[in-house]
């Protein structure tokens, strides 16, 4: 993850300094790698084991910005439908169990793509190097698998559905602006019936901010 070009040493470096410089550079690279590993372990949500929001804001955001210039990245934000109803009707532990199951299914199906617990019942999947249609297909698969899974909280079985909002990352916009787009797509999905995947429409002049 260093991406640093190997620069030639300045010519005026004497031999002992040269050796020290090289070893420091190697140590720096090793530390960076360790830091990456530590980040991926530390920035975790305790309940679900997914990456926490901090992981995205402190680390992943930078990577997304860089990669988006070269490949297609799709942000997929999902929200558990009528989650408040489950919490109220069955209790908070049942709600927790539901989140744990849904998080695991998404993490399983996302493969190597990071899944982040964005909010209480909101999960964000960052699909690197994925064309739009493939992202949509994957999210629909996640949605269907979650809808079909019977969650058991010890007193009975129930199922949850998800609404997904998707948006291709636009490198000309800030992360926050990109996030607004995906959030709007999610909102549209909720308004039009829930339990669906909605892709963000390209910005038109008439869209409200």
């Amino acid at each position, binding site marked *: 993850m260093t991406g640093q070009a190997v620069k030639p040493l300045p010519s005026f470096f004497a031999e002992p300094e040269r050796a020290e410089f090289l070893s420091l550079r190697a140590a720096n690279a090793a530390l960076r790698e360790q830091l990456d590993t530590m980040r991926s372990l530390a920035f975790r949500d305790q309940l679900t084991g*997914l990456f926490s929001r901090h992981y995205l804001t402190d680390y992943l955001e930078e990577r997304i910005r860089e990669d988006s210039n070269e490949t297609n990245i799709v942000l997929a934000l999902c929200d558990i439908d009528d989650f408040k109803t489950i919490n109220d009707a069955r209790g908070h532990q049942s709600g*927790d169990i539901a989140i744990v199951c849904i998080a*695991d299914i998404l993490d399983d199906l996302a493969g190597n793509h990071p899944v982040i617990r964005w909010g209480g019942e909101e999960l964000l999947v960052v699909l690197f190097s994925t064309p739009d249609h493939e992202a949509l297909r994957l999210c629909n698969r996640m949605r269907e698998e979650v809808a079909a*899974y019977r969650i*058991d909280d010890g007193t009975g079985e129930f199922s949850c559905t998800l609404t997904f909002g998707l948006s291709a990352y636009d490198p000309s916009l800030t992360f926050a602006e990109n996030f607004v787009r995906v959030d709007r797509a999610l909102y549209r999905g909720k308004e039009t019936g829930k339990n669906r995947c909605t892709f963000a429409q390209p910005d038109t002049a008439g869209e409200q901010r």
Partner: protein
Amino acid sequence: MRPASKELTVQVMLKPNCGLENTRASLVMRRILPLCDNLSCHPRTVKSDRSTIAFLRDHGLFIRFSSPTPEQVLLTIKRSFFVDHCSLVEDPDTIPSYEKAGIEADAMEDSAFALPSTFADENGLDRRGDELTNLLARFEEVHRKLRTHAEGQPQDRALSSIVFSHTQVVDELRTAVARSRIEPFDRMAPSLRTLIADYSGRFGVLADLDIVDGHMALDRSVLASMEEIIKRVLRFCLRDGIEQPEHRVAAGKPARALLRLRLESDGSEVVCRIEHDGKPFDSRGIARQAVKRGLLTRPLETYTEEEMGALLLLPGFVAAAEGPVSSLFPSSTR
């Protein structure tokens, strides 16, 4: 036909104090299910039963599986965030039994890997099968509407002809779907034999299983429900109906007992008879147990022998193995 994959057993420990251990264990099972030909876990009821948490914390989750890609199964297990470590179990006798408090303690659930039903496949086939049945029902509904419409247009010959062909296809599809749910009874034979081997070892008896007319084919869900009850009865027979080999030989019987499962059908009903050459059944003993446990809903004298015997089939009914309490069915001496 692909050769059967080797059966492996692993012990999976979850991260300490991660909470909701039973749910997390069931999610591990969910991840590896598509990779396995056979899969079962111990304790069996982790998904629904929070009281398995203590066992999971102390001993972990034991998974028994066979798969064409066992390495992938192990990798999938280890990749789960909440799995702390996973190791192969060499000696299955070291697996502690799960004792659930309460009357269920002596039921089938406590044996390691109480064998899963051959036919119940909760997250896979059954769901797809129901999907197919639902789809067929919707298709037939559309067909009915089409036919009604066509009947209102008798002058349209082309339409009538099309509807006629459509009717034929609907009929054939219905038959094909029904046929796809049919399985021969014999499919559960290996599972029953394993059960006989397991339990006869446990109870210190020798027994063989003979299935008569096992080729009989029935709907999958019927077989699944039969399988549960048959296994319960077989277990009961082995525990309370078959004598120890020494006693059998002393009584002039062969050391190995024979359990015979006989399938009979008269077209509308299927009967499964289980016979053996062990001790005769004592219905009074069963009835006394039931009285003691307050299970009878009317006076004892009003129960027929058949009804008393049927009490045995109640899930969780424990007939204490004291004295000469014996098998359910009349003995047939050989």
